[in-house]
């Protein structure tokens, strides 16, 4: 390990109420969930000296349940738990598909959906799913709870509206109508970080097409592709929608891929979504 833990401090709340008080009174603190991203940075010495808040033992943040109409997923639910959940397979199969392609078994056993969202990488695999599902992020602080639609959660590269004294405690997902669709493009099914990741829903409520589509690794934040959605929903040609998506995204060259590749693949994925998800 190149990084050092000397001088770093770990606060260990036993209850959620204690955790949010610690964030208010003793911050700034970096919350630790499954550590599958954070410990990579710690091991490589690229993490700034900081103090941590251990969330792993807070059972209040775990679990999947249906409450009223909404599906509730605790922030500290692991990818393995998501893959095993009957409620997820029934109501949000595209999330199970995303969880299956994250890391390997070891990462899936430890990594959490709340960690994926808090980490705020534009390549996070569950983020397009939450965007396309119209999920709501539930934030808790000592002052109370607030709910932020996933579509307005991110404000810039690795930036979100969550304040330093707030914890992501879970996600609420309204019923999703229509066919769900997920694709991850990477060098390998396991372990690889996405070159492009995409989730979509083809909703045909009341006979009207209302496709929803979100993409990751193509801009500083994961994107809901509202212009492409409108084109597809209003009966524009697929070629037009494919032109629009290439303008709507803002990809860059990085160590995983190039902007040009990502534009071309984004257009191809819109075509695949159109031909596969639209089917009855």
């Amino acid at each position, binding site marked *: 390990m190149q990084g050092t*833990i000397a001088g770093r401090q770990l606060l260990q709340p036993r209850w959620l109420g204690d955790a949010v008080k610690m964030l208010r009174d003793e911050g700034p603190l970096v919350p630790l969930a499954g550590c599958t991203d954070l*410990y990579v940075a710690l091991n490589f010495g690229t993490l700034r000296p900081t103090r941590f808040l251990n969330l792993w033992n807070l059972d209040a943040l775990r679990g999947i349940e249906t409450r009223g109409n909404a599906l509730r997923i605790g922030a500290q639910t692991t990818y393995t738990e998501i893959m095993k959940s009957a409620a997820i397979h029934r109501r949000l199969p595209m999330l199970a598909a995303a969880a299956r392609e994250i890391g*390997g078994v070891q990462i899936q056993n430890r990594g959490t959906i709340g960690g994926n969202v808090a980490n705020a990488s534009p390549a996070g695999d569950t983020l397009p799913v939450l965007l396309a599902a119209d999920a709501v992020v539930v934030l808790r602080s000592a002052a109370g709870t607030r709910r932020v639609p996933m579509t307005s959660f991110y404000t810039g590269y690795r930036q979100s509206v969550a304040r330093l004294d707030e914890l992501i405690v879970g996600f609420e997902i309204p019923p999703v109508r229509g066919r769900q669709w997920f694709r991850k493009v990477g060098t390998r099914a396991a372990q690889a970080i996405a070159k492009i990741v995409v989730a979509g829903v083809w909703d045909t409520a009341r006979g009207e097409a209302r496709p929803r589509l979100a993409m990751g690794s193509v801009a500083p934040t994961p994107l809901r592709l509202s212009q492409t959605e409108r084109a597809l929903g209003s009966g524009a040609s697929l070629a037009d929608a494919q032109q629009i998506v290439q303008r709507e995204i803002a990809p860059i060259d990085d160590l995983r891929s190039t902007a040009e590749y990502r534009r071309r693949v984004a257009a191809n994925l819109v075509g695949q979504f159109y031909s596969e998800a639209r089917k009855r």
Partner: protein
Amino acid sequence: MKLTVNRKTVTVKAHPLTRLLDVLREECGLTGTKEGCGEGECGACTVLVDGEAVNSCLVPVAQVQGSRITTIEGLRGTHPLQRAFVEHGGAQCGICTPGMIMAATALGPRPSLDEIRTGLAGNLCRCTGYAAIYRSVLASRARSRARSKGKGQRAKAKV
């Protein structure tokens, strides 16, 4: 801090943010667990926490207090997977082997080839080309079956 490692309770003095990997190797003297990449890509440091495979390079020790930890030493050299790796060339240079075997134990006693491929996808090997590893895990199934016939459910209970 108290941990349960290979069914024994041990008290460790490590900083709560210390990687489980370092506690196992340096404080418990269990050097069977290897460090490969140190970033959760290669699986060489795989151990079981409450029966689930994890990368011990990414787990702060504070998060496994009260959990059951099993390392390669906990299989005592007699596990059907260990025998099968020896007999079928599943181990070559050996660095990935403890992690491979620990990840394979978490697959249960009768994994299909598909389940083995998926279950070991987080473990990298640069020697075998994987074929010998898959062969070893498949061969261990027959051995587990023979053993559990002879000795009740011991092979299953072992992990």
